[in-house]
C-alpha cells in the first residue's frame, strides 16, 4: 500500500520553541522547490535553497534566485523564516501514478521528463 504523498508546499512556518529556525532551514534545504527566505529586516528573497551549513563558524545557507543567479550566501542570523512558496517538484510524481498512466495508455508520453523545454 502506497502512503499518501506529503509535501511542504504552501507551508509558511513561524519559528518558535517547538520549531526552531534551524529545523525550518533543514526542511527548506531538503525541499525540491523554490522558497521565500524572509530576512530579519523584512526583505523577502525568492529562490532555491541549495546548501546549508550549520557546523560553520557562522552558519549559513546558499540560494539561487528565481532567475537562476547565484548562489548568494546568507547567514542564519539574518533569516527570520522560510516559506515554502514554490511548487514541490518531488511531489505528485509517484510510481503509483505512473503505473496508473501506463495502464491507461498514457505512459509513453513521459509527462514527467524534465528539462526538455
Amino acid at each position, binding site marked *: 500500500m*502506497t502512503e499518501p504523498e506529503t509535501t511542504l508546499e504552501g507551508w509558511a512556518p513561524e519559528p518558535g520553541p517547538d520549531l526552531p529556525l534551524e529545523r525550518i532551514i533543514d526542511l527548506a*534545504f*531538503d525541499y*525540491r*522547490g*523554490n522558497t521565500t527566505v524572509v530576512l530579519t529586516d523584512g526583505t523577502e528573497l525568492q*529562490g*532555491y535553497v*541549495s*546548501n*546549508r*551549513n550549520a*557546523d560553520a563558524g557562522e552558519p549559513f545557507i*546558499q540560494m*539561487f*534566485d*528565481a*532567475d*537562476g543567479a547565484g*548562489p548568494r550566501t546568507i547567514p542564519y542570523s539574518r533569516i527570520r523564516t522560510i516559506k515554502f512558496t*514554490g*511548487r514541490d*517538484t*518531488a511531489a505528485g*510524481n*509517484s*510510481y503509483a*501514478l*505512473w503505473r496508473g498512466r*501506463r495502464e491507461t495508455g498514457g*505512459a*509513453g508520453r*513521459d509527462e*514527467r*521528463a*524534465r*528539462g*526538455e*523545454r
Partner: protein
Amino acid sequence: MSVPAAQMWAVAAYVLRQKLRGRRRYPLVLMLEPLFRCNLACAGCGKIQYPAQILRKQLSVEQCLRAVEECGAPIVSIPGGEPLMYPEIGRLVDELVRRGKYVYLCTNAIQLKEKLEAGLFTPSGHLSFSVHLDGPRAEHDESVCREGVYDQAVEGIREALRRGFRVTTNSTLFEGASPLRMREFFDEMMDLGVEGMMVSPGYSYSKAPDQEHFLRKSRTHELFARMLSKPKWRWRFNQSPLFLRFLMGKHDYECTPWGNPTFNLFGWQRPCYLLQEGYAHSFQDLMENTRWERYGRKSGNAKCRDCMVHCGFEATAVNETFGSLRGFVETVAVTVTGRL
C-alpha cells in the same frame, strides 16, 4: 572481468601511490554532474527534481576541469542528468581524455546515435559509454517509465560499437528483479558485444518517486547470489570482483563515501553521491571538514543501513585488492577462474 589492462594498471598504480604517501582517504572515481536536466524521469531516480531555473543551469567546461584537477581521481564518471544533453559534452570529454583520465559517460543512450553521427566523440581507450540498462526490454522500459527506451539504447550501443568505441552497461536492480531474467540479459549484452557490465542494487533516494521497490540487504544478497552463481565464462563485468562477491554476501565491507566524490552545480556534495547533506566549496573542504564518522553502516546512520551501492563499496573493494595480500590473491583467483 573486463577492465582493460592499461586502465587496471593505471588504477593500481594510483592506489599504490596513495598508499605510499600514507593517504588514509583518497578518491577513486570523480562523479561529475555538469547538469541535472534529463530526457527521462525514472521511478528510482532522485537526481532531477529541481525547479526550472536550476534545471536550466549547467557547469562550464572550465568549472568541470577545475574540479577534475582538484580531485585528482584517475577515473571520471559523468552522470547527471543526461550528459548527452550537455551542450559541451564533446569538448569536456576531449579535455578529460587529453588529461589521461578514464572517462565513463553514463547515458540513457536515447541521443547516443545522433551524437555519434554528429561526430561529437572520437574513439579512445580512455572513453567508455556506460549505458544505463536496468535489464531486458520490459524491465528496463518499466524502470525508466517510458516504452521504447531499451530499443533506442540498443541502437545507440550498436552504433557506438560499430564506430570502435568502448561500451559498457550499467544496471541498477530493484525489488522484484528476476535472477533468471538478468542472466538472460547478461547473455544479450554479451551477444551485443559490449565490453563489460556493471550491476548494483538501487538506493532509496528520499526524493525518488518509487520508494517501494528498493532492495534491502538480505534481499540484495539473495538476488545477487542467485544471479551471479555459476557465472558463464563469457560474461564480463567492468567492476571489482570483490564488490560482486560483497553483493553476493561473501564479504562484509564498510562504505568508503569519499571514494566517489561528487561535484555539481551546488559544489562538492557531502558526504557521497547518494546523500545530500550539504555542499563543500572545495575538494579539500569536502575531505577535511566532512564528519565521515556519521556515515557508513557502523555509524548507525539509518540512511546508510541498507546501502550496498557501488559508489560507496566499489572503492572499498578496490582498496581491499591493493591493500591486502588476501584481497589481491582473491581478486586474481576470481579473474583467472571466472568463478565468483
